[in-house]
């Protein structure tokens, strides 16, 4: 065991910190609004030019081959410097690991560099009006078009984050209507400007128009845009969803940074003798540290070649509950000012409340923990 960072890790941290401190933009509008999204893209492209957009990817795709530990360090520095939520994250953190694992070389070469450069912007098309937690209930269809060497997609996706601002969608479609639920699904990559696609943006809880419905009406997709094997999309998608729950989307940097802001707020606002809030702030900081150290433990295991599986469900419940608790504590500290929208905390609270819902609700994650981690019987 050696819990000190190596000289290389320290150097990487120093380089990242210096660049981020000099370049991170402040006061951008929410990336879930149209003009906010445009401003975020400028920032994402600046990140890419400095080769900080995808630090863990190989050099040839715009990365720097950073180790998982260095990636975590970068994330800590990113959020420490006040960097905004990445609007490209669904592509970079969810689709990309799947493309690295299942994509052909041609797909990797075509998709990854444009994704890193924020030229192609990817959104995630799993959910449908009648397929939320029960993802295997999806009804959107893929019908074979042998003559044209591809597939014709029809159906509706919904709650698609930033779907109205993105250029591409990845998602699951039912390619074999005869097969059992989890079988007969195929993972497709779909350009949103293809004929037959209609995208309708709609508001989220906080009023930002960051959701979209995507309607597909006989949309042609060539074989080259199938990711993984035909009818075996479920297994491919599981790689994407475990990235979402696990480390890649929710690196600890975000939570340690929120905990630090909570401490600042406590210093500004609190009556130092008020024991309950004092305890709540301390508890949040300890939990953020726990998340950080649990992550280092996990990354060490990954680096040693261990495959991580259902543990990502533990992580997902922990970070999402922690995020809600931290924001609740902040609103209590703000007292009569809690309702104001200029502190950032109410906005953050509304976003935090989505954590226990998306990426598989926490109820579903608890089922998975019980069955896959603890080995309890299924019903």
């Amino acid at each position, binding site marked *: *065991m050696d819990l000190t960072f190596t000289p290389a890790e320290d150097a990487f941290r120093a380089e990242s910190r210096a660049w981020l401190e000099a370049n991170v933009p402040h006061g951008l509008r929410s990336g879930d609004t149209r003009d906010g999204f445009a401003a975020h893209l400028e920032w994402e492209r600046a990140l890419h030019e400095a080769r900080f957009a995808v630090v863990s990817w190989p050099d040839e795709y715009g990365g720097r081959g950073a180790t998982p530990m260095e990636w975590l360090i970068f994330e800590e520095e990113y959020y420490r410097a006040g960097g905004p939520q990445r609007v490209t994250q669904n592509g970079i953190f969810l689709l990309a690991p799947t493309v690295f694992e299942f994509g052909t070389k041609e797909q990797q070469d075509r998709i990854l560099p444009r994704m890193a450069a924020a030229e192609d912007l990817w959104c995630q098309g799993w959910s449908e009006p009648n397929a939320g937690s029960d993802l295997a209930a999806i009804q959107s269809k893929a019908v074979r078009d042998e003559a044209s060497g591809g597939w014709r997609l029809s159906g509706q996706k919904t709650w698609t984050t930033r779907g109205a601002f993105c250029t591409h969608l990845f998602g699951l479609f039912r390619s074999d209507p005869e097969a059992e639920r989890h079988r007969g699904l195929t993972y497709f990559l779909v350009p949103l400007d293809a004929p037959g696609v209609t995208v309708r943006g709609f508001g989220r809880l906080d009023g930002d128009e960051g959701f979209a419905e995507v309607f597909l009406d006989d949309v042609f997709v060539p074989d080259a845009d199938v990711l993984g094997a035909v009818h075996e999309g479920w297994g491919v998608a599981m790689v994407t969803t475990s990235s979402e729950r696990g480390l890649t989307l929710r690196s600890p940097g975000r939570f340690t940074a929120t905990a630090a802001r909570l401490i600042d707020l406590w210093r500004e606002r609190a009556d130092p003798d008020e024991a309950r809030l004092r305890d709540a702030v*301390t508890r949040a900081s300890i939990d953020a540290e726990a998340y950080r150290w649990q992550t280092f433990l996990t990354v060490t295991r990954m680096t040693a070649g261990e495959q991580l599986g259902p543990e990502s469900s533990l992580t997902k419940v922990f970070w999402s509950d922690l995020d809600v608790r931290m924001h609740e504590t902040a609103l209590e500290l703000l007292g009569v000012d809690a309702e104001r929208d200029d502190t950032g905390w109410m906005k953050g609270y509304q976003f935090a409340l989505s954590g226990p819902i998306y990426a598989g609700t926490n109820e579903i994650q608890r089922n998975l923990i019980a069955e896959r981690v*603890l080995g309890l019987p299924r019903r």
Partner: protein
Amino acid sequence: MRFAFTEEQLAFRDAVRDLLARECPPSVVRDAWTNSSGRTDKVWSRLAEMGVLGAALELRDIDVVLVLEETGYAAVPEPVVEHAVVATPLLADPGSARAGEITVVTAFEGQGPVVYADSADTVVMGSEAGVVVLEDFDVAPIATSVDGSRRLGEVTGSGARVADADAFHRAFDRGALGTAAQLIGLTRRMLDMTVAYVIERQQFGAPVGSFQAVKHHLADARIALEFARPLVYRAAWSMSEGESESPVHVSMAKASAGDAALLTAGKALQCHGAIGYSFEYDLHLFMKRAWALAATWGDAAWHRARVGRAIL
């Protein structure tokens, strides 16, 4: 950064785990509740043979933290943390303590009542005034512990001052860290017992572990364990390296481990139903140890307050 134990550390843990599985099953813990000392017949000497009682003399906290976790898993009814981790490094001549020929317990400010004082040969007292070793002392039994093996007493006596306030603080942190490690072991034990039980127990024609309400209780316990454990290991590393922030790290560990154990005790009992509420059934041995250890060497509120003073 590499957050993993060495082969040697894991091998030491495995050896102690095997020993305790053999020598300290629940029946032995249960016997300790009713015998004269609250302790076992031979676990103490076996632990001495394995080098556990003298571990703090040669090894670092990071080398023994996993072993202490195992003593928690088995709910060993012996003053392992007090003797092996806190007291022996403070003795001028620790030879007979290392060999398990004598038992040394601790009367530390902040620890709470002195455990196993009436079977102790030496008492090490610690306070802001420094550390004092007592060979000659009186023990007044006080209230009994919720954990029937933990004999509680109050110690009076005088002796020679052997170390200063700094040493007291470091030793106190060892006590808190060692107890946190035991709490992690207890949490694992209660969770293991409960998982095994809910798979076996049938109601409505199905294992109760297939019901979602039961699953969610146990998932929450598993999450608490998952995130407390790294804080304990990190604190052990921090103590080993003499990091200036190690007291804060220890407090984070003790608070989280105590919370995880208390949560798991509650979930374990609920998922067992009335059998878990039966004195004849073993679960309570572990729950009660968890309640006792969560309170001793600073409870979660005390440790969070210490973290708060450092970070707020």
